């Protein structure tokens, strides 16, 4: 029976990344299509608590590999640690939510397993041994259906395309394994977290994004975001200018979001930006230029100065409370 292994990701504070639950949801879909069973893996210095949380998500087993050397994430140490489990389990599919960490780790793990890999998978087609993956290419201008022909198939999953798995489905067996520990030629020096009181961009229900039209003045963007309990996003032009941290970039080469509501203010709508937000449920565009391409994807557009519209919008939304 094919085995689908989903790797859970812990944040530096030990908590599980929310996208992990979407990856488990995707893993379930894949296991169904392939006629297989779902397993979950977790490695780190002390992942037992996080692993415990994953017991109720319908997996056959949760595999935990602990080693002090795995305190700080490094592709070089995590890849061999996970490879041992993939080989022991004889997993056929190994996947993880698409995040900065998995995009660093999964190809290294795949290389070790001599596995072909698909990045940012959005869905599965076919069944049994013929399961194929659908994934975006050219900034989401093309959807490709790809088949991986290596014995082990590796992938990362676009979390916004899969419903999060729900807990309360029995208790999977928690099994420990001994991860292979290898000396690393790379040393972890430090991690500087960009802390924000706002929700995480990829997890927020509402996102308010600003572009070059803000000329770097994000006060109104932030005020509206706070009114809506929203996350703040940005176009690459704004990140490159150093006006906001790079972490906020939405797009082909930034983050992919799909909130219930996406408000784009002073963003022209280049295809690289659209690639990161086109799947949002409702899109609002605020732009001075009636010809701006963003209006072609927006459900509601306002042709006006954002510095006039944003305060008015905030006031008007305040009235709804």
């Amino acid at each position, binding site marked *: 029976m094919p085995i689908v292994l989903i790797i859970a990701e812990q944040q530096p504070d030990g908590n599980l990344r929310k996208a992990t639950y979407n990856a488990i949801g995707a893993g379930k879909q894949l296991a169904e299509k392939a006629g297989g069973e779902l397993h979950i893996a977790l490695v780190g210095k002390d992942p037992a608590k996080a692993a415990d949380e994953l017991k109720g998500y319908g997996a056959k087993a949760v595999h935990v590999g602990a080693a002090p050397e795995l305190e700080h994430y490094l592709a070089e140490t995590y890849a061999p640690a996970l490879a041992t489990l993939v080989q022991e389990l004889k997993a056929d599919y190994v996947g993880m939510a698409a995040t900065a960490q998995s995009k*660093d780790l999964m*190809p*290294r793990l795949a*290389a070790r397993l001599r596995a072909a890999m698909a990045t940012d998978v959005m869905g599965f087609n076919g069944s049994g041994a013929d399961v194929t993956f659908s994934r*975006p290419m*050219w900034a989401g201008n093309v959807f490709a259906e790809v088949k991986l022909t290596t014995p082990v198939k590796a992938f990362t999953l676009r979390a916004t395309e899969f419903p999060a798995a729900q807990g309360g489905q029995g208790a999977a067996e928690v099994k420990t394994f001994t991860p292979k520990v290898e000396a690393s030629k790379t*040393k972890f020096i430090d*991690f500087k977290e960009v802390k924000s009181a706002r929700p995480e961009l990829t997890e927020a229900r509402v996102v308010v994004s600003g572009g070059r039209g803000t000329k770097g003045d994000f006060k109104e963007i932030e005020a509206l975001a706070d009114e809506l309990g929203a996350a703040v996003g940005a176009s690459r032009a704004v990140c490159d200018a150093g006006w906001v941290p790079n*972490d906020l970039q939405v797009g082909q080469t930034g983050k992919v979001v799909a909130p219930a509501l996406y408000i784009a203010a002073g963003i022209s709508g280049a295809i690289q930006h659209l690639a990161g937000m086109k799947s949002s449920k409702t899109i609002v565009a605020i732009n001075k230029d009636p010809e701006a391409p963003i209006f072609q994807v927006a459900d509601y557009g306002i042709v006006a100065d954002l510095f006039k519209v944003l305060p008015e919008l905030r006031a*008007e939304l305040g009235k709804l409370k």
Partner: protein
Amino acid sequence: MKILVTAKRVEDPESKIKVKPDGSGIVQEGLKYKINPFDEIGVEEGLRLVAKHQGEVVVVSIGGKEVQEQLRHALAMGAHRAVWVNHTGPLDQLGIAGLLQKVAEKEKPDMVILGKQSIDDDQNQVGQYLAEFLGWGQATFASKVESLESEQEKNKVPALVIGADGKTVRVIREVDNGLATLECQLPAIVTTDLRLNQPRYASLPGIMKAKSKPIEELTPDKLGVNVTPAIQVLKMSSPPARKAGIKVADVPALVEKLHNEAKVV
């Protein structure tokens, strides 16, 4: 210091990409090609490092005869030599990384710089495969912390710093929720993020000089790599189009729509 930089040929990011009606690929007519923007950043970073530490930048591209254009572009920017792996037909990450491994073993660079992703396939894999194949350390998504548009850009803390003994590189990486710093023993693999630097323009003398710089030709056969792809692209399609929406007259009208029609506020 010898730095090997990859230069993939890709469609100009400004191009309109359309899928062929039969789903077998994209419409090629009228497309312009460029060096992958991330790779251009890699060439720039390589040039800055050898300007500081001496040495040479060698660029490598895999593909048909046409990829020589991208190699010439990198040479015109200032790269010293080029390696062309002549191969037509599909290649996957295993194949590309396998070829690059052989080129790296031949050239013995101190560092290989690749793009974090290519803007056609958006796979974001080759650098990491190569690091594993070579058994080297990797630092992906190298990124500068400060503004790229500021006047003093050149004087600010670079994201790649070679250790005083010349044996390590310290890399600032852009990751979710922050910045991570790693130190890799050389030789190492680095992949570039967009904000690492702003690539220089090729000067006219640079373009003239590039014409006489050597391009070495290799093939998968000569390198002894089997490149039969393990990834099959079965079909391509256009994503479902979004219905064009409406323009509303003013803010109250917008809020009314968001509240009553879309029901998102």
